[in-house]
């Protein structure tokens, strides 16, 4: 890799990292309030992508829409994928986790339920949408908007990073400055005592899933804008984002943002440096390295502590 190529990898790395960060927040939020890794979150991401595909091809069946139509399609895609992701996450909590919580089931039962829900959604999508790869319409024909030191930045890259950053800023505000946010933080720190304060724990947990699902669904759509869709598309980004959440310190929102960004950039640089086949190895090598030195992750504390 030549020095002048750094930006060629840094920019896609930031884009990928922003997406990982948004997905990682979904894992970390749920972990905060339930101490549960919602392994079905990768399927929320997949549902987001497919719901956008359905909506976009319904609105405009052509594969190469004009710029004006593209703007409309992006807006529709964001709305539909966010809604579908939120609805999926909401249903997941109601069906896969709440009944177990009611019965004070052991932790292992939640894990099995999570994996079961994940496979169920994955194969349901395979059945409904087919097992072949699909693609979203090519929006903006990969138009370049500006160049930084000779490296072109596309509209899509800009869009993805902006959308991700906006969601993260919005979430940070919601968690730290709103009443729902203080409920989420209180439940994460001490659920029973939060109940004594008048916090409806079930409601807070449900809304936490909705928020994480909304962000995860949109991430699925944004991801689908530059990569193929398939019913198993959630797996790799999901597991990488989960690793990002752990790297940042699971339960910590800002940690998830940092971890996602770090893994995205590392992944992007690993293919020119070590070769394409090392791409996914690198992200998990970072996970192992971080955990060796900081077993609780970079900002390893619980949700409320610094978020």
């Amino acid at each position, binding site marked *: 890799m030549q020095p002048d190529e750094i930006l060629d990898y840094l920019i896609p790395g930031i884009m990928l990292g922003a997406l990982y960060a948004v997905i990682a927040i979904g894992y970390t939020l749920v972990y905060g309030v339930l101490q549960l890794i919602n392994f079905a979150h990768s399927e929320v991401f997949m549902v987001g992508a497919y719901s956008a595909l359905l909506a976009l091809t319904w609105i405009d069946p052509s594969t190469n829409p004009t710029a004006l139509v593209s703007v409309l399609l992006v807006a529709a895609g964001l709305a539909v994928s966010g809604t579908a992701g939120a609805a999926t996450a909401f249903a997941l909590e109601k069906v896969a986790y709440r009944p177990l919580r009611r019965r004070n089931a052991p932790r292992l039962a939640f894990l099995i339920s999570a994996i079961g829900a994940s496979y169920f959604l994955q194969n349901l999508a395979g059945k409904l949408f087919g097992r072949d790869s699909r693609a979203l319409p090519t929006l903006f024909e990969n138009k370049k908007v500006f160049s930084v030191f000779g490296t072109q930045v596309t509209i899509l890259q800009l869009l993805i990073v902006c959308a991700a950053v906006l969601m993260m800023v919005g979430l940070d505000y919601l968690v730290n400055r709103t*009443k729902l946010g*203080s*409920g989420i*933080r*209180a439940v994460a*720190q*001490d659920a*029973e*005592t*939060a*109940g*004594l*304060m*008048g*916090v*409806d*724990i079930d409601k807070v947990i449900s809304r936490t899933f909705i928020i994480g699902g909304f962000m995860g669904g949109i991430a699925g759509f944004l991801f689908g804008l530059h990569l193929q869709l398939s019913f198993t598309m959630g797996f790799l980004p999901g597991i990488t984002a989960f690793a990002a959440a752990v790297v940042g310190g699971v339960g910590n929102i800002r940690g998830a943002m940092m971890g996602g960004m770090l893994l995205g950039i590392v992944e992007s640089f690993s293919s020119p440096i070590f070769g394409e086949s090392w791409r996914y190895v690198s992200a998990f090598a970072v996970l192992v390295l971080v955990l060796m030195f900081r077993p609780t992750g970079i900002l390893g*504390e*619980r949700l*409320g*502590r*610094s978020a």
Partner: protein
Amino acid sequence: MSAADAAGADAVGVAESAAGTAVPPRKKMLELDDLHVFYGAIQALKGVHIEVNEGEIVALLGANGAGKTTTLRTISGLLTPREGEVRWRGERIDGVPAHHVVGLGIGHSPEGRRVFPAMTVTENLNMGAYRFKSVPKAELDRVFELFPRLAERREQLAGTLSGGEQQMLAIGRALMGQPKLLLLDEPSMGLAPLIVAQIFEIIREINEQGTTVLLVEQNAAQALRLAHRGYALETGSVVLSGPADRLLSDPKVREAYLGEGA
């Protein structure tokens, strides 16, 4: 005993009140009627009867594992009794979930303080007012007046406060919900005697400002000096009850709870 017969006159206390400190006839606020509470197969409460009248400080004494905390947790809806009733101003509230019980005007400062460690003092107090649309400013001022230490540390994370400050915060947080009845679970636990005296003085003040208090304590002597009436629990049952001054001079109490005799 019929609840109606005793209305306005505490069955145990009324005879004594003439002789001792004045305990005027009061309205019954909270009644625990034959409570049986289980943790799985283990029975923690075996038919507990307790009454709290408006305006009182009632002390609930007993050793570790006697069922004091279980009693408070049942009142605030964290536990549901298998048998018996919890009545709040005559209406059954057993089985009502905790986040609704606080809305009835029952504040609970739990065992071990349980402040939200990663929130500031102010955020913790705001959590206490979660049931309201907005934080009642007057209440916040009152809490800071009762506990000037909290006012000095309002931006400090609760997890970094001393034990005594955390206890003040736990009580203040419960007050932010403007409770009619305040449940205090071992406010003296692990604190230096000077701080305990300070906190007990503040509890008296809170009571004089009109909040009824049900106080769980292992520190029986101090609790009975503060309270109007007391109950002693042993392995899930009430074994003694009466006006505080009488309990304080009762040889059985002195032996079992004040470490005398034996």
